[in-house]
Every structure is written in C-alpha cells, then in structure tokens.
C-alpha cells in the first residue's frame, strides 16, 4: 500500500510501486491536468512538484513520491503559481494547451528560485518543456511578467 499526499490530501493506493507517478495521477487519482506526451522526460508535459521541486512524472516511479508532497497543476495555489497563471492569461499564451500544465509548473519552479529571470535563465529552466504550437515567445514574456508581479513591481 502506498501512502501519498497529493495536493495536500492523503491518498492510500494499492498499486505497482514501479508505476510512473504520471499514470497514478491520471488513471488512479483522477487528476488529468498532468499530461502524457513522450514518456521519457523529453517534453516536460508531465511536470509536477515533489516537495516543491519539479520532476517529470512520466519517469518517476510512484514509490519515489511516497512520503513526499506531490503538487499538480490542480493544486498549484502558491503566489508564484497564481502569478504565472495570471500572466499566462493576461498575455494569452495558450494555443492547443496540452503542454501548458507542464510549462506552468516549470515556470513556477523557476520563479520560486529566481523572481527576476533573464532570457538565459528562462532558456535554461524551460528548455525541457516542448510546445508544438511554439508559444515560446509568449511564455518568455509571461514569465517575466509573473516575476514582476511577484516582486511587487508594476507589470
């Protein structure tokens, strides 16, 4: 039996401990905001937090997540997370939207470390998140906007 804490709520699940966290979330916890796209940590669509650190859920066995705080897009309620979501909406980043949960999680993780990222910081943090709609120009601007909002500056 696995004891998990997902978005602050305890869950007990009887599953193969090797099952990737992604499929536990999607098929067994009913949280489908985290997406499958590559299954080999190449695209970032499945990015979630374990104790606040971003991981690719598609290659993380669920056993690794036991005992840690798992945060998914559905539970992203920190000031940084909200600032990112607001900036995403304000600058109309999304197109098809499939990768955007992962983009938002990675962007939030970046801003948690560094609220004033420059282009190189953004490239380094976001380079693992693919977007086939190529919303990258707006992602870049939205991260900067969210950073400004977080540090109290005027947008």
């Amino acid at each position, binding site marked *: 039996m696995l004891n998990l804490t997902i978005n602050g709520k305890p869950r007990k699940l009887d599953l193969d401990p090797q*099952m990737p966290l992604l499929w536990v979330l999607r098929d067994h916890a009913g949280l489908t905001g985290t*997406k499958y796209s590559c299954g080999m940590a190449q695209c970032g669509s499945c990015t979630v937090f374990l104790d606040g650190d971003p991981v690719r859920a598609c290659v993380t066995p669920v056993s690794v997540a036991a005992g840690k705080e798992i945060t998914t897009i*559905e539970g992203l309620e920190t000031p940084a997370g909200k600032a990112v979501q607001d900036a995403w*909406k304000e600058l*109309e*980043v*999304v197109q098809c939207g499939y990768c955007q949960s992962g983009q938002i999680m990675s962007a939030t993780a970046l801003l948690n470390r560094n609220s004033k990222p420059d282009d190189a910081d953004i490239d380094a943090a976001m*380079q693992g998140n693919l977007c086939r*709609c190529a919303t990258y120009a707006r992602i870049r601007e939205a991260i900067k906007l969210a950073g400004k909002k977080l540090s109290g500056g005027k947008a």
Partner: protein
Amino acid sequence: MKTRDIVNLSRRRFVAGSLASAAGLTLGILPVALAEQRKSGPGFAGAAPGEAGEFTPNAFLRIDNDGLVTVISKHLEMGQGTYTGLATLVAEELDADWDMVRVEGAPADATRYNNLFWGSAQGTGGSTAIANSFEQLRRAGATARHMLVSAAARQWQVPPAEISVSAGVVEHKSSGRRAVFGELAELAAKQTVPESVTLKDPKEFKLIGKRIPRKDSSEKITGAAQFTSDVRLPGMKTALVLHPRRFGAKVKAVDDTGALAVAGVRKVVEIPSGVAVVADDFWSAKLGRDALKVTWDESGAFKQSSAELLNDYRKLAEKPGSVTRSDGDVEQALGRAENVLEAEYSVPFLAHAAMEPMDCVVRIDDSGCEIWNGEQMQTGDQINVATVLGLKPEQVQINMLYAGGSFGRRANPAADYIVEAVHIARALKKGTPLKLIWTREDDTRAGYYRPMYLHRLRAALDKYGNPVAWDQRIVGQSIIAGTPFESAMVKDGVDRTSVEGAANLPYAIENLRVDLHSPGLPVPVLWWRSVGSSHTAFAGECFIDELAYKAGRDPVEFRREMLLDHPRHLGVLNLAADKGNWGAPLGRGQGRGVAVHESFNSYVAQVAEVSVRRGVINVDRVVIAVDCGIAINPDVIEAQMQGGMGFGLSAALFSQLTFRDGLVEQSNYHDYQVLRIDQMPEVEVYIVPSAEPPTGVGEPATPVIGPAVANAVFAATGQRLRQLPLRLA
C-alpha cells in the same frame, strides 16, 4: 446555470415547430432545435436537455435565462483560436457581453454543421474555419439579436426600432427600460425567426478587430480542459496497439501468454492494424504490450531507405510528368537564354508530432457507436466507422473535444486511429468504453506523414537579368490518391495538394511550366500544416532567390518587379522588408533572408535574420507581415503567425523522419527533434489593414520560414542549402 426540474416540453416543441416553418433556411441554418440532440458529457455543457426558458434560435447558439450565451462551434479547437474567432462572429452581431459567452463543440451532424467550403461535409482544415463561417455565424447572431429585440418590443410595447442592444443589455432609452438577455430569453424563443437580417457595417464592429480574450485560456491554465486522453467513463478500459515495424507487414502469429499474465491486462485482440492489449489502465496495457510476442509476415512489407527513395525520385525527375501549368514555351526559352540555372530541392517525410499523441475513446452499444475525439473530420469519420460496424453514419455520435495539436493529423480520410479503436471496442463486452492511446513511439512510427518531395528546377535569365523561363518538376507521393477526395482533387494525374504554391507561382515569368510525378509507396501520407506549400514555398522562394543573386539584383527588389500584378503579395513583402530593416548592415557571420508566399488565400512575408556560429544556424529575429483580410482578432492572428512560423522552423532546422530498410529511424522527441524555447527567435508580427473577407491564419505562416532562413544562411555564408532540414557543409 441553475438546476431545473421542470422540462417545458411544450415550449421546446413550439420552438422546433416555429423554426421549421420559419425562414431559417434562407440563413443557411437548418431548423432543428439543438437541445433535442444535446447530451451531457465531456465537450458538452453538462446541462440537462430542455432547460425551461432557454432560447435556441438556430444551430449555432443558445441563450439560457441566466443570460449565458453558448456558441456552438462546428470547428475543432486545436490551438488555432477557432472557438474564440467563431464566438466573436456570433457575439458581434448579437451585441453580446463577451464575458457571458462560452463555447461548446458541435455534435457530428453535417446537415447543420457542414464546412461551407467542403460542400456537404463537416470538418476542420485548410485554414477555412473563419472564412467559411464569416457570414453564416454573423447571421446566426443577428437573427438572435432580432428576436431578442422583438421580445423586448412586445414586452415593453414600444417600436423595435427604438430599442438598442449593447454588451448583452437590451434597452429602450426614452422610457429607461432595460433588460439583460437572460430576462428576455424565454419570450425571445417565441418570436418569429426573421426572414432576413441586416449585418453591421464593419465600422460598427465592437468585437471584431479587437484583442478580446480567448475563450479556452482559463481551463487550459488550470488543467481543467478536457482532451481525449482525459476522458474517464465508468468501466472504461485502456488499449495500446502493437503495430508492425514495417508498413505492409501482417500478423503471422501471436503469443499472448506473457501479456495476459500482466496484472490488469484483460484481453489481447488481433485487429487489422496490429495486435491490441486491453487493460484496466495505461500502465498495465503498456507492460502487457511489452510482454506481447508477435511474429510478422513481412513478405509484402516496405523495405526501402530514404536515400534510395531520393535516388528513385531523382531518376523520375528526368522524365516529363503530368503538367499542371504551362505558359508560353519553356523549352524554347531555356534553349535560347543567356543564363540557365538548375537546382534540386528536397524535403523529408515529417511526422506531425502533436503534443497529444493520437488517442480516441469509443463505446459501442445496441443503438450505435459513440466517440470522444479531438475530432477534425466528422463526416468522413462517421462513414468510416459506420462501414466497419454496419451502421448508418448518423448512428455514429461524435463528441468533439479539444485536440492537443493536430497540424492535420486528426483529419485522416482513412480515420486510421479511430477505426483502430472501433475494432478493439467491438471485441469487448457491449457498452464497454475503450480508450486507445498511442505512445509517442506509436505516433512517430505508425504513420501518416508529410510526404518526402523532390523538386527539380530550371530557369533562364535574359541578358538584362530578367527571368524568362521557369520549369519546375515535382516528385512525391499523392496525399489524395486512394481517398474519397480523389475524384474531386486529382485532375489529369495532378493531385492539387502536391502542386499548390507552385502551380500558382505569382511571379511574372512568360514561359512557365510545372509538372508532377506521384510515385506510389506503402508509406501512409497525409496533409501536414500548410500541406503542399510546406515544400513548394521552400523550393520556389529559394530558387527565386538564387535567380536574384545570379542577376545581381537585390532579392526584395527582384521579387517586387515580378509581383506588380499581385498587390497583396507586394503589400506583405514591402511591409516585412520595411519592418525587417531590409538592406541595413549586419555583422560578420550574419545574414538576412526574405520569402513571400500565399496559402489558403492569406499572404505572408517573412524576413529572417540569422547568425552562423561554429557551424550552427541561429535564427535571431523574424519579422512577419500578414494579409488575411479583415482581422477578426489581431491577438490570435499574431499568435498564429508566431506559432505557425515556429512550427515551420522545426522543419527548417531539425525535424526529419527517415527510413532505413523500411524501418522508421526516429521514435521520440530525442531523435525526432522539434523547436525548443532557446531556439525560438524574436518575432514581430505586422497585420496589413484590409477590408477583404477574412481568410485563415492557422497555416500560412508555416511554409514561409524555411526559405526565409535558407536565404538568410546564403546571405550569411554563401552556402546555398537546398535540403531540409538545413545542414551547413
């Protein structure tokens, strides 16, 4: 929306009846009350049918008595912003409050939701959504507005002409009476549908032309948006399919012992396209598939390599093909010219590689088949599924969900992955919902690619450096051959999707010929964002550039002189050149390139700036000018220009799908590479003001970037790269 217990059937019958007798037909709107057909579930409002007080004036909108305006989108939202654009058209003429507008996907029903550019078929593609709906949806909105005004006039006993509508409020100014839409919905439903409506003069537009918010943003930033992969139904099973490694291979023997021993695996099913493993969840199905042993009969399988195909194509290009355009006398002009240039351009197979791999949910029961899908081609898919199951097409219900990208992949005349899911579902207990998921590897290797193409070009310049002959021979598989579209889209041996963008080359060249070879191969091919233009723009716009340099002319000036009869090409070319600082000096190792191309009646020019450092091409800045007629939403247009260009840049710099002995060499994003954020250039977008009817923006930016970058690389390095993806020597 409030919950209501009373279903006012008599009213609904009245609405249906009154619509049936009214002039809805003159509006191109078929008179069926949508509520009759609506059901709850993913992709739908979730409301019980038959809300009392609801106003459903036509197939495209519904207003409930809380004032919520639901626009029914007949087109798929796959990122291109169509839900926002279509709702804008309705809301504009309805004078709705944009914040009170929501969008819902239409059911599959071509009698009401056909693409007006596709005759009687329903579907999304060819950048047609806004263009075919522009008048239809404005009329739908204007009709509803008229009925709301009639209702207010009756209720207040005032002349309709004295009533105004603005942002969802109906008002009689002189008496100070006002009502929001919701308050009038029930009475509006009882008004006669007007025989004709007057549409706004563009000067009166309040929403069209404005950067109003997208309708799908909120649910896509919270993870709430429902994609096909997110559908969860009681008792649902998940299937993965083991496909053959080579196209054309057949199952010889299946050993399912290992697969069935995996916990959670319920069934192994042999289907025409391979062998399916059905399980309780994805991971069990995946482990089951890993444990499955299949022996394949590869006697009829495709075993060629990409290099071999290119050589075959090269040989074919030596022989005349089916002529699609012939102006003047090309051979004579080439024979007597001072300067003749010859070049070969080629592009590889490409996967669409949408972020959401192909997937589909199917449930079959006694009444028919229900499908949940990022649905791009309703009518064709209904026919394909009905054929497999022995049903009537209308017994195939389709719930159109958001698609996590498509780029053409989900519009397949063969309905491949949908039919695959149907074959699996029919082997299960009746009524069992089945979700088929393709892994990334399946999505990369199981087919339907942009075909590989080779272009052989010859051109002649006279002694003044003016082009006098252009001869273009194209070799590549036909996308249309063998599909139901063949009779309409292949004429005299020419698949028009193979030559679009070349057969209509806009440059004023007196002697011009374009011909085509369409070799058949067992590799399944399909349209890929911008279709024929994805290769014709590359070959044509690069070769024009070669001619300009050969003639010693500036590439922009050279094009301008040959586009005098094409003002919209010229307009975007001049705008992009101006905003892109054409002619301004650049540093060492840097270069600027230009390309201009029309596709789907939209005109795009791009100026790309590149820098070449240590053998790597960096695209630093791209300036885009677009003329797409009336700009419905400039922000969505800008996004499509940025993203469409970025999609094309993946193909220009990185992506290729290659065969070795019939095996696809790539499998996932590590070897089928696509653009990442650190490779995205700075982008500026400029929209040409226009009063022309709106045309599409989803595709036209894609084909222009390849030639713009290749031309910039030449300017920077002197190397003329004629093969995609671009590789420096």
